[in-house]
């Protein structure tokens, strides 16, 4: 049942106060030809119906609050609710972006302090808080790379961005959007960048490298310094996709290894809620030499006042106003609540939890890279595949057990990939149940593969036909 199916003419779920100014005939205000002749096509329902409808919808949804959510590459950790209260304070939620700076000093201070914290965590100089998500941060970073080379008169020459084959899809997509040519570097046997191949690829055409570290296999690249040196020697810049920063907080810093730009996904590492697919925030932090290229505006502090400023060679704005400010409030709250020791503990426990689960599962599922992992790891369902059970089936079966499935079929370089990220906010008890469930499913794959293929059966709907959806798209009521 959709809203428009519940609609009855004339109803309304919200009433405005009566118009308190003398009414003028609309014709006098706006010529008729500008006015709508059709109905707006919105549902006509009342507040009780709206509440029940969305409450019922929500009950058909999994969330971190509902159960384990080991979705790899997404860091589905607990989102402290006090941050919601803080972001909802009128002093944050009810301020207008065009207010004079003098009336929003608290907001600017918050942005400034968050910027500094992120810079310290990254081991770099200064942030732009504008990007609305990781991919947006990538775009901003790549535009900075472009602007940097242009500044050095190399814009026409340095047109290639090198990206590992294990990278998240946003990396090549962002590079394309920024106007670069994408060159893919393969992974080696140990799951890291194939250093030899990289060496062959670089040259005066190299604008930079985008590296995710720990990479999407959950592995820390053992040759990080060498990789950095190769790129820098070739005159390229180093972009660090920090989506997986939940593994490295206070452990190691991209800047210390020579990276020039890092983006963080605040909605992952810094625990702002994912909201069903956003809003997030993907601030970037850059090294000293790139500060002048940051998107505008940035926040600066001088003469006892915070103010917005435009960096000297700014690439320009990339988002309206100041980024997803409400998300920044939550991330900053998180950083202040945890402090240095707390953040380090986050990474330690995230990594410990991942290794624990990986180790317990590697007898039952093929583990393509049998190394200590970071905050996540990638199994392969290929053994089960031989039994006629796909990774998709395994994922769907997990849903029957009240667990969100891991990320599947990504990274692309692992056959039948199952990417598991437990996060630090899960208890050993929860991990043990999950391990047991995964073992049970492995057993089911052996004994009763059909059951897996018809999974899920205990969910609000059964397995949905994605092909049909794409073939004859029904995109609205």
């Amino acid at each position, binding site marked *: 049942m959709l809203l428009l199916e519940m609609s009855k003419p004339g109803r309304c779920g919200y009433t405005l106060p009566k118009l308190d100014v003398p009414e003028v005939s609309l014709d006098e205000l706006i010529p008729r030809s500008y006015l709508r002749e059709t109905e707006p096509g919105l549902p006509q329902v009342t507040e009780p119906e709206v509440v029940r409808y969305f409450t019922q919808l929500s009950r058909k949804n999994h969330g971190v609050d509902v159960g384990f959510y080991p979705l790899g590459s997404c860091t589905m950790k607990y989102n402290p609710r006090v941050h919601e209260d803080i972001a909802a304070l*009128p002093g944050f939620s009810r301020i207008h972006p065009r207010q004079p700076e003098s009336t929003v000093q608290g907001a600017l201070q918050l942005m400034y302090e968050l910027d500094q914290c992120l810079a310290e*965590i990254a081991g770099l100089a200064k942030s732009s808080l504008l990007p609305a998500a990781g991919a947006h941060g990538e775009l901003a970073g790549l535009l900075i790379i472009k602007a940097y080379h242009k500044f050095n008169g190399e814009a026409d020459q340095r047109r290639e961005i090198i990206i590992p084959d294990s990278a*998240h899809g946003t990396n090549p997509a962002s590079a394309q959007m920024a106007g670069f040519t994408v060159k893919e570097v393969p992974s080696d046997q140990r799951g890291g960048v194939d250093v030899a191949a990289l060496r062959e690829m670089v040259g005066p055409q190299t604008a930079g490298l985008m590296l995710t570290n720990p990479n999407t296999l959950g592995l820390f690249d053992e040759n990080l310094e060498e990789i950095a040196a190769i790129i820098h020697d070739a005159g390229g810049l180093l972009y660090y996709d920090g989506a997986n920063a939940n593994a490295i907080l206070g*452990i190691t810093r991209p800047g210390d290894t020579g990276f020039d730009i890092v983006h963080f996904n605040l909605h992952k590492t810094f625990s702002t809620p994912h909201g069903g697919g*956003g809003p997030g925030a993907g601030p970037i932090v850059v090294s000293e030499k790139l500060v002048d290229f940051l998107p505008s505006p940035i926040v600066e502090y001088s003469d006892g006042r915070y103010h917005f400023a435009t960096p000297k060679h700014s690439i320009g704005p990339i*988002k309206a106003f100041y980024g997803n400010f409400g998300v920044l409030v939550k991330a900053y709250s998180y950083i202040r609540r945890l402090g240095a020791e707390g953040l380090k503990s986050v990474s330690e426990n995230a990594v*410990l939890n991942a290794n624990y689960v990986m180790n317990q599962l590697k007898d039952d599922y093929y583990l393509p890279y049998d190394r200590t992992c970071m905050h996540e790891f990638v199994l392969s369902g290929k053994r089960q595949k031989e039994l006629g059970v796909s990774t998709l089936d395994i994922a769907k079966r997990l849903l029957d057990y009240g667990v969100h499935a891991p990320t599947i079929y990504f990274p692309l370089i692992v056959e039948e990939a199952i990417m598991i990220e437990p996060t630090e906010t899960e208890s050993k008890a929860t991990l043990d149940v999950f391990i047991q469930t995964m073992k049970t499913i492995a057993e089911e794959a052996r004994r009763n593969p059909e059951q897996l293929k018809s999974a899920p059966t205990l969910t609000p709907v059964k397995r949905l036909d994605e092909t049909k959806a794409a073939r004859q798209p029904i995109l609205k009521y």
Partner: protein
Amino acid sequence: MVPYIPNTPEEQQQMLQSLGMNQIADLFADIPEHLRLQRPLDLPEALTEPELLRYMGKLAQQNINLDQCVSFLGAGAYDHIVPAVISHLTSRGEFLTAYTPYQAEISQGVLQSIFEFQTLIANLTGMEAANASMYDGATALAEAALMSCNITRRSKVAAAANLDPQWVDILEVYLGSQNIELIRVPYGSDTGQIALDAFDLKTGSELACMIVGQPNFFGALEDVEQIASWIKGSGGLLVMAVDPISLGLLKSPGEYGADIVVGDAGCLGNPISFGGPSVGFFAVNGTKLIRKMPGRIVGQTTDRDGNVGYVLTLQAREQHIRREKATSNICTNQALNALTATIYLALLGNEGIKQVAYQCAQKTAYLRRKLVEAGFKLRFNAPVFKEFVLQVDVDWEQVNERLLEQGYLGGFPLKSAVPELADCVLIAVTEARTRAEMDQFVELLRGCR
């Protein structure tokens, strides 16, 4: 005691032992010793919850918020009334703490609500289909321009010179990276409306699209029909950037024959929140355009038992499948803000959205009239919706300071954003303003002259 970490030291030890390790540091053996940070991060001390609330509360109090003053600020962000019930629904853990609905069978809540968003946005704009949301209106517009080039295989984009300058700046950044040329179409100096007659219409044949704001940055309404027939006649697309609230009153882009419609839906029930998170929308007409849209799209389908359900669809456009050939790099979008907008639109419905739009128009007209009566000059003479430009030879920043002392946030001075309107101010009036507030505002302004 580190918050939010449930495992006890004993459990951590057990887990380490199961890995044959003795200490946490062993987990990080792959990181060369000298790359490991040898000191604690230099961050402010950790705060307990009460301390955090106190600190953040203090920062919040250092801002003047819209509950503490009367605001006539607009210029891209508006103080519309927000129904109280919305946040009670969006804050439910199942919405708040879910991610992109990759596992459809346990994500029907998010999926169906996105399908509703697509439906309501498509209906409101009069278009065939909408996506699941964009970062905001400005980036939605940039993506619309890129998509226009992609569709038409042309590499010039025309944008009205009366668009929000901030949006245009962002557009330029996006287009610049693809070497797409941005051409500005002038506006009439009396009307503030697009002045096609002052533009070389033959350029049309090179244009991927023409971008029209309705209303434009000055709050004025464009005569879109003429523009539409010209750009479509030239083989380009008509891209409209609209205020969704205005569509309770104004002709829908679909009725004008727009190809792509974008806008910012932050004003639909979302807290204003210093301008973000907001949410952009993106709607199109025609199968070809649908299959080239950026961003997430949800489609209806059936499950094994034939029951209706919803899934992410047309994913072949997206970065996780197509990588560098994707229609956009967007991944995480603004789902919760889109949900907010959906609930807002559901609550208001046809009657409510018409009321809001009608009241905006009436109240704006009232203040405009009152100001004229008080001897102020309107900069443009075109019809307006909820915003207008006032021209007075004063230092608007100083005036605003004086207004603020009385609890009023004056309009947005155009000096820096639109240099040619240095003596102007952009004033927005929403349904949230009362007659008494407007009357007093006129009085105060009179005093500031």
